[in-house]
């Protein structure tokens, strides 16, 4: 185990940033999001929950895929180079780290996504353990240990000191230059945190029944109407979610050609998967159901029981009208069925 005084963090980051891009939680006008480090940036590792998740580092909200250039009546195609530069992603919490596993299942299986894969390959991930989970956290339900997250490097903040331990060769190399430390303070903190985790209101959600075997039962439940009644159809939950991975591919006519780009899409939107005939989920009830059926039923039934939720709590905190996945789990989980 290595250690670094938080007061020396900036110095370390500055040195690292000379050779690699660093992405970590940065505060901008009161909000903390993952962003590219530049000396002087207001780094905020202590923030439990960034507004957006860490997924942007691999799957940005908007990215260019190819360009078409038109000259008179002819058109030429230009490819966009992949991002092949190493970078470091620091401050990833256990929940967000878990989300990479879920995203990998989508983007790295067939059809393989080279844009995502390139970034994934070039990243060194430094996770950060949680010591002050809040009432909206429920990651433990999804097999996340927030006191001991994975990644190339795992880190803990205890009393103004950052403790780090390498889990991979890449990780070891990154922290090799730091001072050695003993792991007692970390273990003590972990024990204390685990006690709190047990006491969290959503520590033990009943996820029974969310599987392929009960698909139609959940799908046809009459509770969706009430659950979704207040839904505004905004995309907040999907955009702050670390596991939402839907995107739309769009063409932008620049006047000289076309830029083909992809951008996040939200199943909560009325024009999600819009086709020539219209949409196949015409009401918000259906869109709302789609989102949670996907996370809790369709995805696990196609992915060895892995839920497409990591319990980060962002949707609980950010939904303008306080709708969220916990309410859905509580309404439909276990043997709680209709009627």
């Amino acid at each position, binding site marked *: 185990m290595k250690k670094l005084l938080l007061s020396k963090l900036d110095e370390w980051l500055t040195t690292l940033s000379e050779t690699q891009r660093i992405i970590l939680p940065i505060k901008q006008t009161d909000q903390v999001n993952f962003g590219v480090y530049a000396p002087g940036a207001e780094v905020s590792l202590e923030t439990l929950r960034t507004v957006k998740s860490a997924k942007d580092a691999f799957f940005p909200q*908007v990215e260019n895929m190819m360009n078409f250039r038109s000259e008179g009546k002819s058109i030429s195609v230009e490819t966009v180079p992949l991002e092949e530069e190493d970078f470091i992603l620091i401050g990833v919490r256990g929940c967000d780290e878990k989300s990479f596993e879920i995203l990998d299942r989508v983007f790295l299986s067939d059809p393989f996504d080279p844009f995502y894969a390139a970034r994934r390959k070039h990243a060194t991930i430094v996770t950060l353990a949680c010591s002050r989970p*809040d009432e909206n956290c429920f990651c433990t339900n999804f097999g996340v240990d927030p006191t001991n997250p994975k990644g190339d490097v795992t880190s803990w903040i205890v009393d103004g000191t950052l403790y780090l331990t390498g889990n991979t060769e890449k990780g070891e190399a990154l922290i090799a230059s730091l001072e050695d430390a003993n792991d007692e303070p970390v273990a003590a903190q972990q024990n204390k945190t685990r006690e709190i985790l047990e006491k969290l209101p959503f520590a033990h959600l009943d996820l029974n029944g969310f599987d392929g075997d009960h698909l139609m039962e959940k799908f046809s439940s009459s509770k969706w109407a009430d659950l979704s009644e207040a839904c505004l159809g*905004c995309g907040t939950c999907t955009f*702050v979610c670390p596991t939402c991975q839907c995107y739309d591919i769009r063409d932008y006519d620049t006047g000289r050609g076309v830029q083909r780009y992809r951008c996040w899409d939200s199943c909560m939107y009325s024009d999600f998967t819009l086709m020539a005939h219209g949409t196949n989920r015409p009401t918000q009830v259906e869109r709302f159901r789609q989102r949670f059926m996907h996370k809790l039923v369709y995805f696990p039934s196609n992915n060895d029981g892995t839920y497409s939720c990591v319990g980060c709590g962002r949707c*609980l905190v950010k939904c*303008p009208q306080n709708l969220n996945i916990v*309410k859905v789990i509580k309404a439909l989980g276990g043997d709680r069925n209709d009627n």
Partner: protein
Amino acid sequence: MQRELMERIRALMDKGVADQVLAWKRGEFFYDTEPAILTKDELGEMVYDSFCGPNLSKYLIKEMPKIENKILALIKPCDSYSLNQLITEHRIDRDKVYVIGVGCKGKIDVDKIRAKGVSGITGVDENGDKITVHTLYGDTTLDRKDVLLGKCLFCKGKEHRIADETVGESEDTSEGSDRFEMVKKLEQMTPDERFSFWRKELSKCIRCNACRNVCPACSCVKCVFDNPNTGVQNKAAANEFEENLFHIIRAYHVAGRCTDCGECSRVCPQGIPLHLLNRKFISDINELYGTYQAGECAGQRHPLIDYTQEDSEPSIVHERGNNG
């Protein structure tokens, strides 16, 4: 007050005035309230307390076609402006709504409690001007006025501008604040300072559309930004221009109709002070065309669909100075 309100709703339902009520219902936490349409049997779920911030008026639009008789609607003083505006725009049929004006003494913003470093919140006790927050990590006492929703700091007053009856007392929580203070401050900056202020804010935008979808004035059947035929449709801002475009046009489309209900800023997940865009329009309209409050009563004609022959010329924008 919650009990008094519930009894009154029950009595109105018993009288046959309506069989449903648009209200708030209790969620997982004491602070987590959810807009809901409740029948008499579901009234037990209803809640009315310091955390019922959401403006319910817009929900009436989608209920309109379903209502045969009437629906009861709980409307706070500030929400009553939005309701009037929607009636003006024929989105809500006044005859189908029985408006219960509910008293309001300012609503608490749980995000502001969190912003004070309080986490793991499990409960709150209110004691007059103070609130005590219970958390997994101990208790904290805060001044109530420090954690009120942004919109409550610029409260439009305790009057309900539309109501069939009122239940409960209201209080003006504005404490004489000038809601245009920040607009004026921005106007006094240099153009580059203003530009950088808005870049810092708008670059956080994730185009979740929460501001638009919650906005009672943004009630278009189909928004221009969702319509592939408008030439401005997009699902995410590809660059700074599109971030600006969305917010300029959104504010422009509600100019004259925006009641300054503050919902846009309340719901923004990135804390962008969107109301400052709307307030700029309100401030300019007040200054150039006379003070106007959208939604003060139903049937108003707003200043941007009106004119006088003596109106000032657009060059006034430049002449007023500090415009570069």
